Protein backbone atom coordinates (compact mmCIF):
# COMPACT_ATOMS: atom_id res chain seq x y z
CA UNK A 1 0.00 0.00 0.00
CA UNK A 2 1.29 3.41 -0.95
CA UNK A 3 2.36 5.55 2.02
CA UNK A 4 -0.03 8.42 2.80
CA UNK A 5 2.30 11.14 1.54
CA UNK A 6 -0.10 14.04 1.91
CA UNK A 7 -1.01 13.10 5.46
CA UNK A 8 2.67 12.66 6.27
CA UNK A 9 3.30 16.18 4.99
CA UNK A 10 0.54 17.43 7.29
CA UNK A 11 2.08 15.48 10.16
CA UNK A 12 5.43 17.14 9.51
CA UNK A 13 3.76 20.57 9.55
CA UNK A 14 1.76 19.81 12.67
CA UNK A 15 -1.49 20.17 10.73
CA UNK A 16 -3.11 16.92 11.83
CA UNK A 17 -5.57 16.49 14.70
CA UNK A 18 -3.81 14.93 17.72
CA UNK A 19 -5.39 11.47 17.40
CA UNK A 20 -4.66 11.19 13.71
CA UNK A 21 -1.14 12.48 14.26
CA UNK A 22 -0.53 9.89 16.96
CA UNK A 23 -1.82 7.08 14.76
CA UNK A 24 0.33 8.17 11.83
CA UNK A 25 3.36 8.62 14.06
CA UNK A 26 2.93 5.02 15.17
CA UNK A 27 2.81 3.93 11.55
CA UNK A 28 6.05 5.76 10.79
CA UNK A 29 7.67 3.83 13.63
CA UNK A 30 6.27 0.45 12.61
CA UNK A 31 6.38 0.62 8.84
CA UNK A 32 9.77 1.29 7.22
CA UNK A 33 8.13 2.33 3.97
CA UNK A 34 6.00 4.96 5.69
CA UNK A 35 9.03 6.11 7.66
CA UNK A 36 11.03 6.43 4.44
CA UNK A 37 8.26 8.47 2.86
CA UNK A 38 8.16 10.75 5.90
CA UNK A 39 11.92 11.29 5.71
CA UNK A 40 11.65 11.92 1.99
CA UNK A 41 9.17 14.73 2.56
CA UNK A 42 11.38 16.24 5.23
CA UNK A 43 14.39 16.06 2.89
CA UNK A 44 12.42 17.50 -0.03
CA UNK A 45 11.40 20.51 2.05
CA UNK A 46 15.00 21.08 3.12
CA UNK A 47 16.15 20.74 -0.47
CA UNK A 48 13.69 23.35 -1.71
CA UNK A 49 14.80 25.73 1.03
CA UNK A 50 18.39 25.29 -0.14
CA UNK A 51 17.77 25.95 -3.82
CA UNK A 52 20.00 28.48 -5.49
CA UNK A 53 18.67 31.68 -6.90
CA UNK A 54 20.83 33.21 -9.56
CA UNK A 55 20.87 36.66 -11.07
CA UNK A 56 18.71 37.35 -14.07
CA UNK A 57 20.56 37.72 -17.37
CA UNK A 58 22.36 41.06 -17.46
CA UNK A 59 20.41 42.33 -20.47
CA UNK A 60 17.18 41.91 -18.51
CA UNK A 61 18.40 43.93 -15.56
CA UNK A 62 19.61 46.57 -18.00
CA UNK A 63 16.12 46.75 -19.51
CA UNK A 64 14.49 46.91 -16.12
CA UNK A 65 16.75 49.79 -15.15
CA UNK A 66 16.13 51.59 -18.41
CA UNK A 67 19.70 51.15 -19.58
CA UNK A 68 18.59 49.17 -22.61
CA UNK A 69 15.52 49.38 -24.81
CA UNK A 70 12.58 47.35 -23.54
CA UNK A 71 12.62 44.75 -26.27
CA UNK A 72 9.81 42.74 -24.81
CA UNK A 73 8.55 39.92 -26.91
CA UNK A 74 5.00 40.18 -28.01
CA UNK A 75 2.65 37.70 -26.43
CA UNK A 76 2.64 34.67 -28.62
CA UNK A 77 -0.09 32.22 -29.11
CA UNK A 78 0.34 28.97 -27.29
CA UNK A 79 -2.02 27.16 -29.59
CA UNK A 80 0.78 25.42 -31.45
CA UNK A 81 1.92 24.01 -28.12
CA UNK A 82 -1.60 22.92 -27.37
CA UNK A 83 -1.73 21.12 -30.65
CA UNK A 84 1.67 19.61 -30.19
CA UNK A 85 4.01 18.06 -32.61
CA UNK A 86 2.01 15.04 -33.62
CA UNK A 87 -0.55 16.74 -35.76
CA UNK A 88 -1.02 16.24 -39.41
CA UNK A 89 -0.12 18.91 -41.91
CA UNK A 90 -3.69 20.08 -42.47
CA UNK A 91 -4.02 21.07 -38.85
CA UNK A 92 -0.85 23.08 -39.16
CA UNK A 93 -2.33 24.86 -42.14
CA UNK A 94 -5.35 25.66 -40.04
CA UNK A 95 -3.10 27.19 -37.42
CA UNK A 96 -1.46 29.35 -40.02
CA UNK A 97 -4.83 30.55 -41.14
CA UNK A 98 -5.82 31.25 -37.61
CA UNK A 99 -2.74 32.50 -35.84
CA UNK A 100 -4.52 33.51 -32.64
CA UNK A 101 -5.85 31.27 -29.93
CA UNK A 102 -9.31 29.91 -30.65
CA UNK A 103 -12.44 31.91 -31.05
CA UNK A 104 -15.02 30.75 -28.57
CA UNK A 105 -18.32 29.57 -29.92
CA UNK A 106 -21.21 30.58 -27.72
CA UNK A 107 -23.95 28.06 -27.16
CA UNK A 108 -27.59 29.03 -27.02
CA UNK A 109 -28.40 31.08 -23.95
CA UNK A 110 -27.26 34.19 -22.19
CA UNK A 111 -23.54 34.91 -21.80
CA UNK A 112 -21.59 37.56 -19.99
CA UNK A 113 -18.35 38.52 -21.71
CA UNK A 114 -15.97 40.51 -19.58
CA UNK A 115 -12.73 41.69 -21.13
CA UNK A 116 -11.38 41.30 -24.65
CA UNK A 117 -12.56 38.35 -26.68
CA UNK A 118 -13.64 37.16 -30.06
CA UNK A 119 -16.73 35.04 -30.00
CA UNK A 120 -18.95 33.43 -32.54
CA UNK A 121 -22.65 33.61 -31.69
CA UNK A 122 -25.03 31.81 -34.07
CA UNK A 123 -22.45 32.29 -36.80
CA UNK A 124 -21.97 36.00 -36.07
CA UNK A 125 -18.39 37.01 -35.21
CA UNK A 126 -18.38 39.51 -32.35
CA UNK A 127 -15.36 41.26 -30.94
CA UNK A 128 -15.90 42.43 -27.37
CA UNK A 129 -13.58 44.86 -25.65
CA UNK A 130 -15.33 45.62 -22.40
CA UNK A 131 -18.39 44.07 -20.80
CA UNK A 132 -21.28 42.80 -22.86
CA UNK A 133 -24.18 40.45 -22.45
CA UNK A 134 -24.79 38.30 -25.50
CA UNK A 135 -28.04 36.40 -25.83
CA UNK A 136 -27.99 33.65 -28.40
CA UNK A 137 -31.26 32.23 -29.66
CA UNK A 138 -30.44 31.23 -33.24
CA UNK A 139 -30.81 32.88 -35.61
CA UNK A 140 -31.31 35.85 -33.28
CA UNK A 141 -28.33 37.34 -31.47
CA UNK A 142 -28.71 40.23 -29.07
CA UNK A 143 -25.72 42.19 -27.77
CA UNK A 144 -25.96 44.65 -24.88
CA UNK A 145 -22.85 46.57 -23.96
CA UNK A 146 -22.44 47.92 -20.44
CA UNK A 147 -18.80 49.01 -20.69
CA UNK A 148 -16.27 49.38 -23.49
CA UNK A 149 -17.64 48.32 -26.84
CA UNK A 150 -18.53 45.39 -29.02
CA UNK A 151 -18.04 45.11 -32.74
CA UNK A 152 -20.19 42.88 -34.89
CA UNK A 153 -18.75 41.82 -38.16
CA UNK A 154 -21.24 41.09 -40.88
CA UNK A 155 -21.26 40.88 -44.65
CA UNK A 156 -22.00 44.59 -44.95
CA UNK A 157 -19.13 45.64 -42.73
CA UNK A 158 -18.72 46.26 -39.01
CA UNK A 159 -21.13 47.68 -36.51
CA UNK A 160 -19.86 49.11 -33.23
CA UNK A 161 -22.08 49.00 -30.17
CA UNK A 162 -21.37 51.55 -27.48
CA UNK A 163 -22.08 51.34 -23.72
CA UNK A 164 -25.79 51.43 -22.95
CA UNK A 165 -26.71 50.26 -26.42
CA UNK A 166 -28.33 46.98 -27.40
CA UNK A 167 -28.32 45.58 -30.89
CA UNK A 168 -30.28 42.60 -32.07
CA UNK A 169 -29.47 40.69 -35.20
CA UNK A 170 -31.65 38.12 -36.88
CA UNK A 171 -31.28 36.01 -40.00
CA UNK A 172 -32.81 38.58 -42.38
CA UNK A 173 -30.48 41.30 -41.18
CA UNK A 174 -27.45 39.07 -41.63
CA UNK A 175 -28.53 38.08 -45.09
CA UNK A 176 -29.05 41.62 -46.27
CA UNK A 177 -26.45 43.07 -48.56
CA UNK A 178 -26.00 46.37 -50.30
CA UNK A 179 -28.39 45.99 -53.19
CA UNK A 180 -31.30 44.91 -51.01
CA UNK A 181 -34.11 42.78 -52.34
CA UNK A 182 -32.63 42.59 -55.82
CA UNK A 183 -29.76 40.58 -54.40
CA UNK A 184 -32.07 38.31 -52.46
CA UNK A 185 -34.09 37.45 -55.59
CA UNK A 186 -31.18 36.91 -57.95
CA UNK A 187 -29.67 33.45 -57.38
CA UNK A 188 -26.29 34.36 -58.84
CA UNK A 189 -26.09 37.52 -56.79
CA UNK A 190 -27.28 35.59 -53.76
CA UNK A 191 -24.49 33.02 -54.16
CA UNK A 192 -21.97 35.82 -54.60
CA UNK A 193 -23.34 37.51 -51.48
CA UNK A 194 -23.10 34.31 -49.51
CA UNK A 195 -19.57 33.75 -50.74
CA UNK A 196 -18.68 37.24 -49.58
CA UNK A 197 -20.33 36.45 -46.27
CA UNK A 198 -18.27 33.29 -45.92
CA UNK A 199 -15.14 35.24 -46.79
CA UNK A 200 -15.99 37.86 -44.16
CA UNK A 201 -16.50 35.15 -41.59
CA UNK A 202 -13.17 33.61 -42.51
CA UNK A 203 -11.41 36.93 -42.19
CA UNK A 204 -13.06 37.56 -38.85
CA UNK A 205 -11.92 34.17 -37.63
CA UNK A 206 -8.41 34.75 -38.89
CA UNK A 207 -8.25 38.00 -36.95
CA UNK A 208 -9.44 36.35 -33.81
CA UNK A 209 -7.57 37.42 -30.75
CA UNK A 210 -8.97 35.61 -27.81
CA UNK A 211 -7.80 36.72 -24.41
CA UNK A 212 -10.05 34.70 -22.22
CA UNK A 213 -12.85 37.05 -21.41
CA UNK A 214 -15.42 34.53 -22.48
CA UNK A 215 -13.88 31.81 -20.43
CA UNK A 216 -13.82 34.14 -17.47
CA UNK A 217 -17.26 35.58 -18.00
CA UNK A 218 -19.12 32.53 -19.15
CA UNK A 219 -17.37 29.36 -18.11
CA UNK A 220 -16.72 30.53 -14.60
CA UNK A 221 -20.23 31.84 -14.19
CA UNK A 222 -22.15 28.87 -15.41
CA UNK A 223 -19.78 25.96 -15.78
CA UNK A 224 -17.67 25.99 -12.65
CA UNK A 225 -14.01 26.60 -12.09
CA UNK A 226 -11.16 25.05 -14.09
CA UNK A 227 -9.79 21.99 -12.34
CA UNK A 228 -6.17 21.13 -11.66
CA UNK A 229 -4.89 17.79 -12.84
CA UNK A 230 -5.11 15.30 -9.95
CA UNK A 231 -1.69 14.65 -8.49
CA UNK A 232 -2.09 10.90 -8.78
CA UNK A 233 -3.52 10.94 -12.29
CA UNK A 234 -1.91 8.21 -14.41
CA UNK A 235 0.42 9.48 -17.11
CA UNK A 236 -1.84 8.11 -19.85
CA UNK A 237 -4.34 10.88 -19.09
CA UNK A 238 -1.78 13.64 -19.31
CA UNK A 239 -1.03 15.58 -22.45
CA UNK A 240 1.98 13.81 -23.90
CA UNK A 241 0.65 10.28 -23.51
CA UNK A 242 -2.91 11.31 -24.39
CA UNK A 243 -1.79 12.84 -27.68
CA UNK A 244 0.54 9.97 -28.42
CA UNK A 245 -2.08 7.31 -27.78
CA UNK A 246 -4.70 9.16 -29.75
CA UNK A 247 -2.39 9.76 -32.71
CA UNK A 248 -1.29 6.12 -32.78
CA UNK A 249 -4.86 4.86 -32.65
CA UNK A 250 -6.27 7.01 -35.43
CA UNK A 251 -3.20 6.73 -37.65
CA UNK A 252 -5.04 4.37 -40.00
CA UNK A 253 -8.52 5.85 -39.62
CA UNK A 254 -9.20 7.18 -43.13
CA UNK A 255 -9.22 10.97 -43.38
CA UNK A 256 -8.84 11.48 -39.65
CA UNK A 257 -6.42 13.83 -37.98
CA UNK A 258 -6.10 15.50 -34.61
CA UNK A 259 -7.43 19.02 -34.80
CA UNK A 260 -6.56 20.14 -31.29
CA UNK A 261 -5.66 18.87 -27.86
CA UNK A 262 -6.48 21.09 -24.92
CA UNK A 263 -4.88 20.16 -21.61
CA UNK A 264 -5.01 23.64 -20.16
CA UNK A 265 -7.21 22.26 -17.43
CA UNK A 266 -8.32 18.82 -16.28
CA UNK A 267 -9.27 16.67 -18.09
CA UNK A 268 -7.45 16.75 -21.42
CA UNK A 269 -9.84 17.03 -24.32
CA UNK A 270 -9.23 16.59 -28.03
CA UNK A 271 -10.94 17.12 -31.32
CA UNK A 272 -10.48 15.07 -34.45
CA UNK A 273 -11.31 16.19 -37.94
CA UNK A 274 -12.41 13.58 -40.44
CA UNK A 275 -12.15 14.74 -44.04
CA UNK A 276 -14.63 13.47 -46.59
CA UNK A 277 -16.33 11.12 -44.18
CA UNK A 278 -17.77 8.04 -45.83
CA UNK A 279 -21.14 6.64 -44.92
CA UNK A 280 -21.03 5.05 -41.50
CA UNK A 281 -17.98 7.07 -40.46
CA UNK A 282 -19.47 7.78 -37.04
CA UNK A 283 -19.61 4.08 -36.27
CA UNK A 284 -16.07 3.67 -37.56
CA UNK A 285 -14.89 6.44 -35.24
CA UNK A 286 -16.56 4.75 -32.32
CA UNK A 287 -14.81 1.48 -33.15
CA UNK A 288 -11.44 3.23 -33.20
CA UNK A 289 -12.12 5.01 -29.94
CA UNK A 290 -13.15 1.74 -28.36
CA UNK A 291 -9.80 0.41 -29.54
CA UNK A 292 -8.11 3.40 -27.90
CA UNK A 293 -9.80 2.87 -24.55
CA UNK A 294 -9.27 -0.90 -24.63
CA UNK A 295 -5.54 -0.46 -25.28
CA UNK A 296 -4.72 2.48 -23.06
CA UNK A 297 -7.67 3.37 -20.84
CA UNK A 298 -9.28 0.12 -19.68
CA UNK A 299 -11.07 1.66 -16.70
CA UNK A 300 -12.21 4.96 -17.98
CA UNK A 301 -15.18 7.11 -18.86
CA UNK A 302 -15.17 8.44 -22.40
CA UNK A 303 -17.01 11.57 -23.47
CA UNK A 304 -17.61 11.95 -27.13
CA UNK A 305 -19.49 14.38 -29.33
CA UNK A 306 -19.81 13.97 -33.07
CA UNK A 307 -20.68 16.63 -35.59
CA UNK A 308 -20.84 16.79 -39.33
CA UNK A 309 -20.53 19.97 -41.31
CA UNK A 310 -20.85 20.92 -44.92
CA UNK A 311 -20.25 24.59 -44.32
CA UNK A 312 -17.91 26.08 -46.85
CA UNK A 313 -18.97 23.42 -49.35
CA UNK A 314 -16.59 20.88 -47.87
CA UNK A 315 -18.04 18.01 -45.95
CA UNK A 316 -16.15 16.92 -42.90
CA UNK A 317 -16.81 15.27 -39.60
CA UNK A 318 -15.73 16.44 -36.20
CA UNK A 319 -15.25 14.38 -33.08
CA UNK A 320 -14.82 15.85 -29.61
CA UNK A 321 -13.35 13.61 -26.99
CA UNK A 322 -12.44 13.47 -23.32
CA UNK A 323 -11.23 10.46 -21.37
CA UNK A 324 -11.08 10.32 -17.58
CA UNK A 325 -10.52 7.58 -15.02
CA UNK A 326 -13.74 5.77 -14.28
CA UNK A 327 -16.26 7.46 -11.96
CA UNK A 328 -13.96 10.34 -11.06
CA UNK A 329 -15.63 13.39 -12.58
CA UNK A 330 -17.91 15.45 -10.40
CA UNK A 331 -21.20 16.64 -11.84
CA UNK A 332 -19.80 20.14 -12.18
CA UNK A 333 -16.67 18.98 -13.94
CA UNK A 334 -18.71 16.73 -16.20
CA UNK A 335 -20.82 19.70 -17.31
CA UNK A 336 -17.77 21.81 -17.82
CA UNK A 337 -16.02 19.06 -19.78
CA UNK A 338 -19.02 18.62 -22.03
CA UNK A 339 -19.05 22.34 -22.62
CA UNK A 340 -15.33 22.38 -23.40
CA UNK A 341 -15.66 19.46 -25.81
CA UNK A 342 -18.61 21.06 -27.58
CA UNK A 343 -16.88 24.40 -27.72
CA UNK A 344 -13.69 22.95 -29.18
CA UNK A 345 -15.76 20.98 -31.63
CA UNK A 346 -17.43 24.20 -32.70
CA UNK A 347 -14.03 25.50 -33.76
CA UNK A 348 -13.68 22.71 -36.29
CA UNK A 349 -17.06 23.54 -37.72
CA UNK A 350 -16.01 27.13 -38.28
CA UNK A 351 -12.46 26.34 -39.31
CA UNK A 352 -11.65 27.27 -42.88
CA UNK A 353 -10.60 24.27 -44.90
CA UNK A 354 -7.02 23.97 -46.00
CA UNK A 355 -6.35 25.53 -49.39
Amino acid at each position, binding site marked *: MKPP*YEQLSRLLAGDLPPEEAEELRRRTEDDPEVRAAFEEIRAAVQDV*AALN*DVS*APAHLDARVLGQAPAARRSRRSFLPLAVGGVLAAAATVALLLRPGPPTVTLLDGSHLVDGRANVLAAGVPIVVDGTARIDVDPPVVSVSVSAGRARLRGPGGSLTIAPGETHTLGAPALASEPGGDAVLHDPTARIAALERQVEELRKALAEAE*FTGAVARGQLTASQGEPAEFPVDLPEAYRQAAFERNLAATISDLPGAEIHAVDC*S*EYPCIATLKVSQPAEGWEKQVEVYLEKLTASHYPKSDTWMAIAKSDADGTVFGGVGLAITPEYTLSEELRTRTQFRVTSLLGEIEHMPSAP
Partner: protein
Amino acid sequence: MIPRAAAGDPAARTALVRAHGPSVWGLCRRLCPEPEDAYQEVWEKVLGALSRFDPGGPATIRTWILAVAHRHLVDLHRRRRVRGEVVELPELPFVPDTDEPLDRRRRMERVEAALSRLPESHRRVILLHHLHGVPLEDLSQQEGVALGTVKSRLHRGRARLAELLEDR
Protein backbone atom coordinates in the same frame (compact mmCIF):
# COMPACT_ATOMS: atom_id res chain seq x y z
CA MET B 1 18.00 53.59 -0.38
CA ILE B 2 14.26 53.02 -0.91
CA PRO B 3 13.23 56.71 -1.01
CA ARG B 4 16.10 57.42 -3.41
CA ALA B 5 15.11 54.50 -5.61
CA ALA B 6 11.48 55.65 -5.51
CA ALA B 7 12.63 59.09 -6.61
CA GLY B 8 14.34 57.51 -9.61
CA ASP B 9 17.95 57.57 -8.43
CA PRO B 10 19.73 55.19 -10.86
CA ALA B 11 22.32 53.98 -8.34
CA ALA B 12 19.66 53.19 -5.74
CA ARG B 13 17.51 51.41 -8.32
CA THR B 14 20.46 49.37 -9.50
CA ALA B 15 21.23 48.35 -5.93
CA LEU B 16 17.61 47.35 -5.38
CA VAL B 17 17.47 45.22 -8.53
CA ARG B 18 20.85 43.63 -7.75
CA ALA B 19 19.75 42.78 -4.20
CA HIS B 20 16.33 41.33 -5.01
CA GLY B 21 16.59 40.44 -8.69
CA PRO B 22 17.76 36.86 -8.08
CA SER B 23 14.70 36.05 -5.94
CA VAL B 24 12.34 37.57 -8.49
CA TRP B 25 14.14 35.86 -11.35
CA GLY B 26 14.06 32.54 -9.49
CA LEU B 27 10.29 32.78 -9.17
CA CYS B 28 9.77 33.87 -12.76
CA ARG B 29 11.94 31.15 -14.30
CA ARG B 30 10.41 28.46 -12.13
CA LEU B 31 6.81 29.56 -12.56
CA CYS B 32 6.46 31.16 -15.98
CA PRO B 33 6.74 29.91 -19.52
CA GLU B 34 7.92 33.42 -20.49
CA PRO B 35 10.14 34.34 -17.55
CA GLU B 36 11.84 37.27 -19.24
CA ASP B 37 8.56 39.06 -19.85
CA ALA B 38 7.34 38.28 -16.35
CA TYR B 39 10.59 39.53 -14.80
CA GLN B 40 10.34 42.88 -16.57
CA GLU B 41 6.68 43.22 -15.74
CA VAL B 42 7.27 42.53 -12.06
CA TRP B 43 10.00 45.15 -11.88
CA GLU B 44 7.87 47.66 -13.75
CA LYS B 45 5.26 47.20 -11.05
CA VAL B 46 7.76 47.29 -8.21
CA LEU B 47 9.54 50.41 -9.41
CA GLY B 48 6.26 52.07 -10.36
CA ALA B 49 4.77 51.51 -6.93
CA LEU B 50 7.90 51.98 -4.86
CA SER B 51 6.85 55.42 -3.64
CA ARG B 52 3.91 53.74 -1.90
CA PHE B 53 6.13 51.36 0.05
CA ASP B 54 6.35 52.37 3.71
CA PRO B 55 9.85 51.62 5.06
CA GLY B 56 8.47 52.05 8.58
CA GLY B 57 5.63 49.61 7.99
CA PRO B 58 5.38 45.97 8.97
CA ALA B 59 6.72 44.56 5.68
CA THR B 60 10.37 44.54 4.71
CA ILE B 61 11.23 45.63 1.21
CA ARG B 62 12.01 42.02 0.36
CA THR B 63 8.62 40.80 1.56
CA TRP B 64 6.92 43.61 -0.32
CA ILE B 65 8.74 42.88 -3.59
CA LEU B 66 7.97 39.16 -3.28
CA ALA B 67 4.31 39.98 -2.67
CA VAL B 68 4.19 42.15 -5.80
CA ALA B 69 5.89 39.39 -7.78
CA HIS B 70 3.61 36.74 -6.34
CA ARG B 71 0.43 38.63 -7.20
CA HIS B 72 1.66 39.25 -10.71
CA LEU B 73 2.58 35.60 -11.24
CA VAL B 74 -0.81 34.47 -9.95
CA ASP B 75 -2.42 36.88 -12.35
CA LEU B 76 -0.35 35.59 -15.28
CA HIS B 77 -1.22 32.01 -14.35
CA ARG B 78 -4.94 32.78 -14.28
CA ARG B 79 -4.74 34.57 -17.60
CA ARG B 80 -2.94 31.60 -19.15
CA ARG B 81 -5.58 29.24 -17.84
CA VAL B 82 -8.56 31.19 -19.09
CA ARG B 83 -6.91 31.66 -22.45
CA GLY B 84 -6.77 27.92 -22.77
CA GLU B 85 -3.04 27.88 -23.15
CA VAL B 86 -1.00 24.85 -22.49
CA VAL B 87 2.02 25.94 -20.64
CA GLU B 88 5.30 24.27 -21.26
CA LEU B 89 8.03 25.17 -18.89
CA PRO B 90 11.22 26.48 -20.34
CA GLU B 91 14.40 24.63 -19.73
CA LEU B 92 15.58 25.48 -16.28
CA PRO B 93 19.23 26.27 -16.65
CA PHE B 94 20.91 24.99 -13.56
CA VAL B 95 23.71 27.27 -12.61
CA PRO B 96 26.06 25.26 -10.48
CA ASP B 97 28.13 26.66 -7.74
CA THR B 98 31.47 25.17 -8.66
CA ASP B 99 32.40 24.76 -5.01
CA GLU B 100 29.44 22.50 -4.42
CA PRO B 101 30.08 18.78 -4.21
CA LEU B 102 28.90 16.92 -7.28
CA ASP B 103 26.31 14.74 -5.53
CA ARG B 104 24.67 17.76 -3.96
CA ARG B 105 24.60 19.52 -7.31
CA ARG B 106 22.95 16.48 -8.86
CA ARG B 107 20.42 16.32 -6.07
CA MET B 108 19.49 19.94 -6.57
CA GLU B 109 19.07 19.32 -10.29
CA ARG B 110 16.65 16.55 -9.42
CA VAL B 111 14.74 18.83 -7.06
CA GLU B 112 14.44 21.47 -9.79
CA ALA B 113 13.23 18.85 -12.25
CA ALA B 114 10.72 17.42 -9.78
CA LEU B 115 9.45 20.89 -8.92
CA SER B 116 8.87 21.64 -12.58
CA ARG B 117 6.49 18.68 -12.75
CA LEU B 118 4.19 19.98 -10.05
CA PRO B 119 1.04 21.92 -10.88
CA GLU B 120 1.94 25.60 -10.98
CA SER B 121 -0.25 26.55 -8.03
CA HIS B 122 1.42 23.89 -5.86
CA ARG B 123 4.89 24.86 -7.04
CA ARG B 124 4.23 28.52 -6.35
CA VAL B 125 3.17 27.90 -2.77
CA ILE B 126 6.09 25.59 -2.07
CA LEU B 127 8.67 28.00 -3.49
CA LEU B 128 7.32 31.07 -1.78
CA HIS B 129 6.87 29.35 1.55
CA HIS B 130 9.96 27.18 1.78
CA LEU B 131 12.47 29.01 -0.37
CA HIS B 132 11.43 32.57 0.42
CA GLY B 133 9.87 32.09 3.82
CA VAL B 134 6.54 33.75 3.04
CA PRO B 135 4.00 32.81 5.74
CA LEU B 136 1.04 30.75 4.58
CA GLU B 137 -1.37 33.41 5.83
CA ASP B 138 0.26 35.96 3.52
CA LEU B 139 0.15 33.51 0.63
CA SER B 140 -3.53 32.95 1.27
CA GLN B 141 -4.14 36.68 1.03
CA GLN B 142 -2.00 37.13 -2.06
CA GLU B 143 -3.48 34.13 -3.85
CA GLY B 144 -6.99 35.21 -2.95
CA VAL B 145 -7.89 31.78 -1.60
CA ALA B 146 -8.64 30.36 1.84
CA LEU B 147 -5.79 29.37 4.12
CA GLY B 148 -7.02 25.78 3.94
CA THR B 149 -6.64 25.83 0.17
CA VAL B 150 -3.08 27.11 0.45
CA LYS B 151 -2.27 24.38 2.98
CA SER B 152 -3.86 21.78 0.78
CA ARG B 153 -1.75 22.92 -2.19
CA LEU B 154 1.34 22.93 -0.03
CA HIS B 155 0.81 19.40 1.29
CA ARG B 156 -0.22 17.94 -2.03
CA GLY B 157 2.77 19.58 -3.65
CA ARG B 158 5.18 18.36 -0.98
CA ALA B 159 3.72 14.88 -1.16
CA ARG B 160 4.12 14.71 -4.92
CA LEU B 161 7.59 16.22 -4.73
CA ALA B 162 8.68 13.56 -2.25
CA GLU B 163 7.25 10.82 -4.45
CA LEU B 164 9.09 12.17 -7.48
CA LEU B 165 12.34 12.37 -5.55
CA GLU B 166 11.98 9.07 -3.79
CA ASP B 167 14.10 6.97 -6.08
CA ARG B 168 17.00 9.41 -6.14
